[in-house]
Structures are given as structure tokens and as C-alpha cells.
């Protein structure tokens, strides 16, 4: 009896904590795990207006990859994703390196560069839609300065519209990369800098060959965060271009939404969202194996 009171066994042990964790358990199992499995399963059915368990194999996927709009979406996401990774990393790192030079007004500069990150993508998209307005925006201003042939109209040119979105995306997102990189730079032992200086290694070489390799974990974490955000790219497109002109700035997330909630073609929406999941998994799984697999070995 005494030992039982001391150590209640099984389900009732630590009962309050378990009850408190019910929302987390439900979220993890029902929404995240269950929802994902449900969507993947129903992506193999020919559900239209309502989900139906009528399995048709890979038909939805074949149709998906044969749809021009999906191909454009994927191509756009690739261009946007690659450019925004490369540019936000380079710009973010250079800005962080500049901020790390023991400058004055560091807080002011950081506040200014990070503020777009606090805004909604809708706000960002609408502002840049206005700035890039061909008749009244930047193009017009520069033309009125005398450069009458100046041409900068990305939002109405199907070939480069995605770069117009990229400008807005970078404006919003670079500050975050800078803050993460700056935290990484601050984490580097100051003696490294002294040692490099004693050896007469120039500053840029120290950054390139010593500091950047040391910051690998920060780079990887940033990469994972930025990349999983890129796959979700949706609001910005809706606000800035609505996918236009035509279908030239469509993205996968918008494809999913439009087919699920407007096109009444659930099967396509499920298949497309499963492809998005696959894309994220390709980024996440190697990272998780690196991060958590590595820990066990140590």
C-alpha cells in the first residue's frame, strides 16, 4: 500500500501533466499526423466537390504534372526560391558583417532593416505593387527625369513578373536573415579574430575561410527556416499579382487553394499539396538526420 502511494504506476502517474498535454497530443496526432496522412491518402482518389474514397492510383498526379499551370507554378517557385535563398543569404550575411564592426547606432540600423518582417505579406505585396506601377511608380519617376527609354515594368511582363515578386520578398525577408547571421557572428569566439590578425590574414579571407565554415549550423538553421517559408509563398502573390498576368506568376500554394476552394476539384488540390509536402521533406529530412542523428554519435 505504501509503495503504491509513493509511486502510482501506469496511466495515472503524473496525471495532471498528461491532462495538460492533451491539446498538444491532439494537435500532434490528429491535426499534424492525421491531417497529413488523410490528405496524402485522398490524393489518390478522384474527389471533386466532396472527398470520396474512390481510389484511382496516380491519376491525379499524372493530370497535375500535365497541367500547364502547375508547371508554371513549379518553375516560378524554383526561380523565386533559388534567387531568394542566394540573395537573402548574401545580402543578409554582408549586412550582418557590416553590423558586426562595432558600429554606432547598431540598434537603429537593425530596427530599420528588420521592420518589413513585422508586416503582413499582403501589406508588402500591395506596397510593391504600387511602387512598381508602370504609369505612376518608379518607372514613371525615372522616365520623367529624362531617361525616356527607361523600362522597369516587371509586374506586367509575364517573363519577369516573378522577379518583381522577388524584389518584394527580399525586402521583407532579408532582415530576418541578417538578424540570424548576426547572432551567429556574435557567437564566434573573439580570439579567432585576434589569431587571424596576428597571422596577417586579410579581413575578407578570415570571413570566407574561417568564419563562414564555423557558422555552418547557423547557415543550416537559416536555410531550413527560409526554405520552408518559400514553399508556403502565397499571400505575397495574391496581393501583388493575383497570379497574373495570365498564369505567369502562379505558385503551388495558390494552385492548391484555387483547386480546393474555388475549382471544386479536391483531388487535384490534395495531389498538389502532397507534392509541396514532398518538397519540404526533401529539405527537412536530411537536416533532421544531420541534426539529430549527429547528436547520438557524439
Amino acid at each position, binding site marked *: 500500500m505504501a509503495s503504491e502511494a509513493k509511486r502510482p504506476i501506469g496511466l495515472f502517474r*503524473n496525471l*495532471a*501533466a*498528461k491532462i*495538460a*498535454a492533451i*491539446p*498538444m497530443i491532439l*494537435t500532434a496526432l490528429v*491535426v*499534424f*499526423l492525421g491531417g*497529413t496522412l*488523410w*490528405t496524402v491518402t*485522398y490524393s489518390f482518389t478522384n474527389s471533386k466537390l466532396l472527398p470520396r474514397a474512390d481510389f484511382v492510383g496516380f491519376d491525379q498526379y499524372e493530370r497535375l504534372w500535365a497541367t500547364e499551370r502547375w508547371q508554371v507554378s513549379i518553375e516560378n517557385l524554383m526561380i523565386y526560391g533559388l534567387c531568394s535563398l542566394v540573395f537573402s543569404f548574401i545580402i543578409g550575411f554582408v*549586412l550582418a558583417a*557590416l*553590423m558586426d*564592426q562595432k*558600429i554606432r547606432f547598431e540598434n537603429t540600423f537593425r530596427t*530599420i*532593416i528588420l*521592420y*518589413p518582417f*513585422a*508586416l*503582413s*505579406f*499582403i*501589406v508588402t505585396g*500591395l*506596397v*510593391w505593387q*504600387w*511602387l512598381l*506601377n508602370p504609369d*505612376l511608380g*518608379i518607372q*514613371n519617376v525615372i522616365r520623367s527625369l529624362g531617361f525616356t527609354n527607361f523600362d522597369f515594368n516587371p509586374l506586367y511582363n509575364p517573363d519577369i513578373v516573378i522577379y518583381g515578386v522577388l524584389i518584394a520578398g527580399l*525586402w521583407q525577408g532579408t532582415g530576418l536573415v541578417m*538578424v*540570424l547571421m548576426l*547572432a551567429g557572428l556574435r557567437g564566434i569566439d573573439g580570439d579567432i579574430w585576434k589569431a587571424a590578425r596576428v597571422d596577417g590574414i586579410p579581413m575578407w579571407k578570415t570571413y570566407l575561410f574561417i568564419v563562414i565554415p564555423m557558422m555552418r549550423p547557423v547557415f543550416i*538553421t*537559416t536555410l531550413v*527556416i527560409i526554405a*520552408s517559408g518559400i*514553399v*508556403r509563398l*502565397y*499571400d505575397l502573390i495574391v496581393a501583388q499579382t493575383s497570379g497574373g498576368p495570365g498564369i505567369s506568376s502562379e505558385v*503551388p500554394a495558390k494552385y*492548391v*487553394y484555387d483547386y480546393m476552394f474555388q475549382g471544386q476539384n479536391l483531388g487535384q488540390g490534395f495531389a498538389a*499539396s502532397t507534392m*509541396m*509536402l514532398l518538397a*519540404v521533406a526533401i529539405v*527537412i529530412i536530411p537536416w533532421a538526420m544531420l541534426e539529430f542523428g549527429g547528436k547520438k554519435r557524439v
Partner: protein
Amino acid sequence: MSDPGILAVTKAGTDPVRAQLDGPSGTRPRRLISRRNIFLYGTLILVSLYYLLPLYVMIVTSLKGMPEIRMGNIFAPPVEITFEPWVKAWSEACTGLNCDGLSRGFWNSVRITVPSVILSIAIASVNGYALANWRFKGADIFFTILIFGAFIPYQVMLYPIVILLREMGLYGTLWGLVLVHSVFGMPILTLLFRNYFTSLPEELFKAARVDGAGFWGIYFQIMLPMSLPIFVVAMILQVTGIWNDFLFGVVYTKPEYYPMTVQLNNIVNSVQGVKEYNVNMAATILTGLVPLVIYFVSGRLFVRGIAAGAVKG
């Protein structure tokens, strides 16, 4: 001649060997205007101007009349300042459905954000506390699923949640959306609270246990009062995140409950009527105002919030 101080100074100055051995002492004198500083501050100021430009254009445009916008330069300050666009954006601007401006969206956003923030923080803080101090078997598995869930694209879970909400009778209601926000805020917030509670000294918890305090007693009497800063960080994170949400607002609510972001997009991108850029920009600023004010007021805490998500994501 007899002053020893002067003697020492001149001696050190004239003896080249000694000067080299000692080296210059104190911090290196820095010239304020050097090539390095011009480059450094020049670049940062240019970058800052670039980042501020859209905000400036938004404000300037919203204060001009339409004729002035059509005539002039978007960067030019307004000749005649008018607040009419702000009034119109707030109370008269039309979406495709109604013409009562952004005010409706604003109040909807308030009605969505306040309960969502409270509910999500309440759930996540208790979860984080249970994970940090009352570890039970299997807790780690659920936590891992939760963290990985944060990376799953929302699009994958959109429809299953529609079904769940419909089953609960909450689809299309404000409470349905509140629930969705609480669910999707859970991974990052739970992580935030778990890490914070883990960092608190364990002796406190043990001492309270010895004194006979239980799960809720320790939470309310010890943990909660000790972790107000992290609650503020979580609040900043959630208020800005939920206020800025667009996707969930458009999927899980009916038009009469649309949050401000959705309302804004409908006003600006509605195809009917003549485009009133000044009203659009006023509406855009109004929507961005809440997160911007929080950002500028909270400063460091905001950075801490996003860093918390990044440090161990």
C-alpha cells in the same frame, strides 16, 4: 628638470626599442572620418534608405489627393495634405461585397487576435511546463511530431481541418479560426516555453514539490510569476503573426468575419471602380500599423521572439 613624470615620458618617447616593446597602449585611436567608416556607414545608410522607401511612399501617397497622384512623382511630398483618403479607407472603401471600409476588418481582426493569443499562450505555456518539469513517457514523441509539424506546408492540412471544424460545428465561425490559430501557434510557442522553463533552476521546482505543491500550484505560484518576459515575447510573436495571417482567415471564416488583411486585399485588388491609390495606401498603412507599433515599441523583445524560433527550430 626634477619632475620625474616628464622625465619618464621623454625617456619612453625617445627610446625606440622600449617604445616598440611596449607598443601603443590603450585603445587604438580612431578617426571619425576614415575610408573604412565612409564605406561602412555609407552602405548602411543607403540600405536603410532603401528599406524605408516603401514606408515613406505609402505615407506620402496616402496624404495626397488623386489629381496630385496622377500628375506627379510618387516620391514627392504632398503639396496639399489631405486626410480624406484615411477617412475613406477606414469607413467607406468598397470590397466586392460591402462598402464599410476597413473598420469592419479591423474589429474582426481584434476579435480574432485577442482570444487566439490568450488561448494559444495558455495552452502552449502549460504544455511547455509539462514538458520541462513533468516529463512523462511518450511526451518526447508527441513533441517531436509537433515540431516537425511546424514545417508541414499549411496547404496539406487545410482540408482535413475544414472537416474537423465542420464536425465540431465551428466551420465559418470566429471560434473556429481562433482554434486554428491556437493549433498552428502551438509548435513554436511550446518550444519557446519549454526551453524557458528548462532554463529555470530546478531547485525551485524541487523545493516547491517538497512543500507539497502540485502541478497547477507550481505553475500558477512559481512558474507564471517568474516568466513574465517570456510571456511578453510570446504575445508579441502571436499578435503580429495572427494579425498578419491571410490564408486561415480566407479559408476558415465567412466574408462577414474576414480579418483586416483579407479585407485590405479585397479593397485594393477589387476590379470594380476607379483605382484610388491614396485610399489604397492609407488602407495598407492602417493594416500594417498594429504590427509596426508593436515592433517599434517592443524592439529587442521582438528580435528575441524570432531568434527563439530560430535557435532550435
